[in-house]
């Protein structure tokens, strides 16, 4: 009797082992996913929460999300890992890093994974302005995720104080100068105590803010292939001249370069009545402003316009076919209308598809924070962020030359001519 019992037990165990292969077939696909943090707030917690939720609904995929530092750190880590043979399969990196990543051979396009009609519908659902930084040579290399654009924040209380209508922010360059003059105040000793406007030009974002001046002036700075720049065109030089004049001629902006990081602080303590910065600062300003503030689109010169910015999903070349498919599922899920809306509300980034703005969540949020829609409406006239081959080098030389104008070391014509010839030299091998 006992023997029979044991035999059955063995048989049962053997059966369990025979069934094992079936179990091992559904072993989850593992993915490494690098992401940066570039705005305030508990971003890592939000990302981890979204990953957990994704894993619950997709038990066959396991995502290892790795916080990789700033954008700059993240691309450095991802490329170093790639060169060392242990690249992540998926990463969120700057949309402008696209050409660098392609030149290094590190990423693959998403196109082969887009097979069904549903996929195509998803792919065509993003704002065109965001896709401009995600496609080149007819292929889609990046999927918009944490995207932003430049908007103008203004202090309504200071507008009232200066006798301006707080609901009518300047909408053209002439109005901008006129309003800013009224908003610039000096004390009895002639010291400026309050500036009309600050456009940050220090650090590495000068070129981006510059695009908020060139785009309305009807100047495009580079081609879609990323191997040609147009920096010495008259419209571009005009834009540099205007930027310079704001500080030196109209005296409504501090002279020298203005730090990117301290500009929001200047605005929050009322040292500047208007500032131009990323929509990513919306949550920060909303939480910390002790005054009524407004958000406005970029003032027009010939028309409106602003560059987009922020990060895209990239698929790395090192991923196996299964991993690519799994990564694709994850990217589709993260950018679905519901999740894009949740991400936008939590961070202040612009939700990446019109469908996301149609969700109930987003509608409720817009009711509470109407300023959020300014960025969305501006997307109609937005252009791609400045991005070329050997991107960091080209943007750096553009930044250097812009800063040399703002510190009065070069004339706008000279600086842009220098920038053009230096960029031509760098881009020659990519033609």
């Amino acid at each position, binding site marked *: 009797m006992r023997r029979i019992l044991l035999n059955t037990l063995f048989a049962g165990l053997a059966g369990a082992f025979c069934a094992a292969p079936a179990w091992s077939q559904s072993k989850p696909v593992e993915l490494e996913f690098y992401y940066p943090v570039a705005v305030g707030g508990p971003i890592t917690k939000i990302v981890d929460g979204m990953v957990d939720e994704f894993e619950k609904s997709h038990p066959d995929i396991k995502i290892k999300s790795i916080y990789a530092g700033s954008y700059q750190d993240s691309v450095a880590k991802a490329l170093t890992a790639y060169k060392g043979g242990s690249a992540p399969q998926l990463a969120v990196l700057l949309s402008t890093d696209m050409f660098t990543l392609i030149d290094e051979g590190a990423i693959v396009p998403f196109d082969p994974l887009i097979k069904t009609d549903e996929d195509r519908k998803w792919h065509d659902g993003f704002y065109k302005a965001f896709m401009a930084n995600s496609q080149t040579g007819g292929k889609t290399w990046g999927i918009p995720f944490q995207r932003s654009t430049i908007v103008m924040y203004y202090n309504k209380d200071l507008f009232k104080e200066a006798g301006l209508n707080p609901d009518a922010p300047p909408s053209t360059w002439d109005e901008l100068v006129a309003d800013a003059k009224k908003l610039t105040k000096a004390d009895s000793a002639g010291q400026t105590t309050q500036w009309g406007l600050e456009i940050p030009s*220090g650090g590495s974002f000068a070129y981006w803010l510059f695009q908020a001046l060139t785009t309305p002036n009807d100047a495009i700075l580079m081609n879609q292939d990323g191997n040609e720049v147009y920096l010495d065109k008259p419209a571009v030089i005009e834009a540099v001249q205007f930027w310079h004049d704001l500080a030196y001629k109209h005296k409504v902006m501090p002279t*020298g370069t203005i730090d990117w990081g301290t500009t929001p602080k*200047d605005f929050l303590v009322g040292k500047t009545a208007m500032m131009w910065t990323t929509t990513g600062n919306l949550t920060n300003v909303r939480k910390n402003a002790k005054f009524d503030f407004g958000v406005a689109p970029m003032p027009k010169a010939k028309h409106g316009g602003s560059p987009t910015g922020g990060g895209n999903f990239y698929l790395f070349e090192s991923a196996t076919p299964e991993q690519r498919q799994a990564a694709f599922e994850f990217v589709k899920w993260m950018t679905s209308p519901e999740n894009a809306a949740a991400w936008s509300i939590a961070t202040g980034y612009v939700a990446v598809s019109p469908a996301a703005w149609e969700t109930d969540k987003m509608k409720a949020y817009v009711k509470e924070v109407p300023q959020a829609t300014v960025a969305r409406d501006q997307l109609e006239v937005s252009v791609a962020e400045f991005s070329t081959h050997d991107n960091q080098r080209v943007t750096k030389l553009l930044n*250097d030359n812009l*800063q040399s104008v703002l510190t009065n070391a070069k004339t706008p014509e000279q600086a842009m001519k220098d920038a053009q010839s230096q960029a031509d030299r760098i881009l020659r091998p990519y033609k």
Partner: protein
Amino acid sequence: MPSPRPIASCVPINNAGARMKPSLNAVYGWLLLLPAMVLLAAFTHYPALATLWHSFQSTPKGNRPAVYVGADNYISMYQDPVFWQALWNNLAYAAITIPVSVALALVMALWVNRNLAGRGFLRMAYFTPTVLPMVAVANIWLFFYTPQYGLLDQIAHVFGLSSTNWLGKRDTALPALMMVTIWKEAGFFMIFYLAALQQVPPSLREAAMLEGASRWQYFWRVLLPLLMPTTLFVLINALINAFRLVDHVLVMTKGGPDNASTLLLFYIYEVGFSYWDTAYAATLSVVLLAILSITALIKFRWLDRRTHYQ
């Protein structure tokens, strides 16, 4: 220096042992050196040689492997205005921060070496900047330098001086960074001077005073020569730091405006990890390496001869 005790004395002495002794000794010695040698070779010598080798190659990109390009990288460096600017900035930076911070350290050490009320507190206050991480320090100073409501401008405002955009003007950006370095380094060097001062026997001072030497003479003729080994050590450290510490550049100015505050190492970082031009970054590193080796050589050859070790 006392001669080292013969290690092999613990080896049992017999004929065979006596014959094997020299070679065994050598093996034993090499084994003792091995851990340090492996670390030095792997993390110092090999990277230095690899850097030199890479500086004669092109940067590998995608599926284009590196090829030998001779002195091309050096020629483009010679023609690179940003390199020259970074080099001059760094030399000016070293030429000002090193003497000032060392002199300040000595003065502070002499000051807190005396019997003062609250001496411990004073020493701690001088030393605190050293303990703080450079990145944190740079973020604090960033707001000191902020125009209008920054600490410096608020003080200037009390005296009716005009507001200055310290980090945003090309002629003040680098001096502003120097200030942070001096503030941070002086306290660190003070500790070494303080330790050295406490080693100086009080009898020397008494003897000097008996001989009728003035305080200045005692300082100049007795104390300073006795502090020379410390000064040498501090100078080497200061020089290395002048070329090594760039955290504050990254946080405060990113080398701007228009490269006015770019230092050599920051430029290397930028070329290496922003532009991904690793071959050119290696070339720049070779220059940095050469500068540091030459100064170290001069110091050990020349200053050592004039330094009195007790």
